[in-house]
């Protein structure tokens, strides 16, 4: 069943239909929030609140796609979160290690696993170092896989702005990753290594 059917039923007060929408979007929405705010508890709070607000307001949703609308709610909550943190101070760091889905991926070598973990940590830090507008753009694109027009709808900005933010964000992340050639060798270095 596609979103439109479920949204139609949810608009008529069908909780079961909305629960199916939650099941469908809980992981991508949570991961968007997690990559934005960093802490799993804050991310879960944001995702929970986004679903609650969506449920309360779903009658107002007309022709806009549910997915963009839901992510827009969550994006606004992320910005609310940043405003609160700026006002009240930084929250303690959260453990990032739990509840990672690794199903079906075999990483037999402990050293490989350790390196992958180090790479992922560096990527997370590089994303977190981005300014918020760039951060959310690159997350919606590269974590959530949204198309540019969907991102423009979520962020309510022109397509050109989306393009620019994603490009600048990627360039900044790339710059940080390239400071660790042991973990992220450049393609030219890889070619050199293969040639040897």
């Amino acid at each position: 069943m596609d979103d439109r059917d479920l949204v139609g039923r949810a608009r008529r007060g069908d909780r079961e239909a909305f629960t199916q929408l939650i099941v469908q979007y809980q992981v991508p929405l949570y991961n968007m929030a997690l990559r934005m705010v960093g802490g799993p508890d804050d991310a879960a709070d944001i995702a929970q609140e986004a679903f609650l607000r969506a449920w309360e307001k779903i009658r107002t949703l007309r022709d806009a796609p549910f997915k963009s609308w839901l992510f827009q709610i969550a994006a606004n909550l992320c910005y609310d979160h940043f405003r609160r943190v700026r006002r009240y101070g930084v929250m303690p760091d959260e453990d990032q290690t739990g509840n990672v889905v690794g199903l079906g991926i075999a990483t037999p070598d402990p050293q490989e696993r350790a390196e992958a973990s180090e790479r992922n940590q560096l990527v997370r830090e590089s994303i977190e170092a981005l300014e918020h507008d760039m951060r959310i753009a690159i997350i919606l694109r590269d974590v959530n896989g949204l198309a540019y027009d969907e991102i423009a709808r979520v962020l309510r900005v022109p397509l050109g702005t989306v393009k620019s933010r994603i490009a600048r964000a990627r360039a900044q992340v790339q710059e940080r990753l390239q400071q660790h050639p042991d973990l992220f060798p450049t393609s030219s270095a890889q070619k050199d290594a293969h040639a040897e």
Partner: protein
Amino acid sequence: MPSKPRIPTEPTLEELSAYLDHELDAGAQARVADHVAGCAECRTRLDGLRQTAYAIRALPMATPARAFTIPAQRRQASRWAPAGWIGGVAAALLIVIVGVNQLHVHGPGAASSTSALSGGPAGGANGHAAPATQYFAPDRGVGAASKAVYVNATTVVDPRDASRTLTVSTDARTYPSNGTLAVQVQVGGLASNETTVVRLLLERNGYAVELPTGSQGSGSAAGFQAGYALANLPLSSPVSGSYTLTAIEQLPGGSGATLVARLPITISG
């Protein structure tokens, strides 16, 4: 004089990035492709952007440590505040999961931070529908989960130290796909200064869903009880079938030794 082959204008950073995502119009996509084919420097720039995008996409997707629910009744307009800041108040406002998630309990006497539950796995009290998923407190005698009768159980014993045990129990062997799975995990043989972590997986045919747990405890009576709304779990279709509920306890001491308790359950259509 022969004319030099025309090299299309060097693409901007924005164009290269959008090219990577196939987000340029057909003309621009072709122009960038032409240029990149003849320009080593731009190929390198493009490779760098591609590697970066792949590195981000390779981040593992995390599963939330709790399920998301909607209240039985639409709430009145309220200002949101994160639970981490004013936990109890936020919990009351949200009217969602009451209970414990990611508990860190250190010692049998540790106070639980949970509210007493008004509904057990089978349904809510006071005529209200139970939230879709509830996480119950560790077994300290609070919470309606303690009212469940755990009829389906298995225990494994550490072969090197028979006092160390791991028991996983459920309140039924068969559940409807919209039912609530009540689980009790008991860890035996821990010293009062030892802590442990128990993970729970619901698995079938190599695919597993990790169930969030209030899984840390210490002392001889460590353990927890929890209820999981099956409809909210990302189980593969068809949902009905035979599953294994697996509890995994990493034994203290850092040796890597692990107890694994497996309990078959069935989900019916």
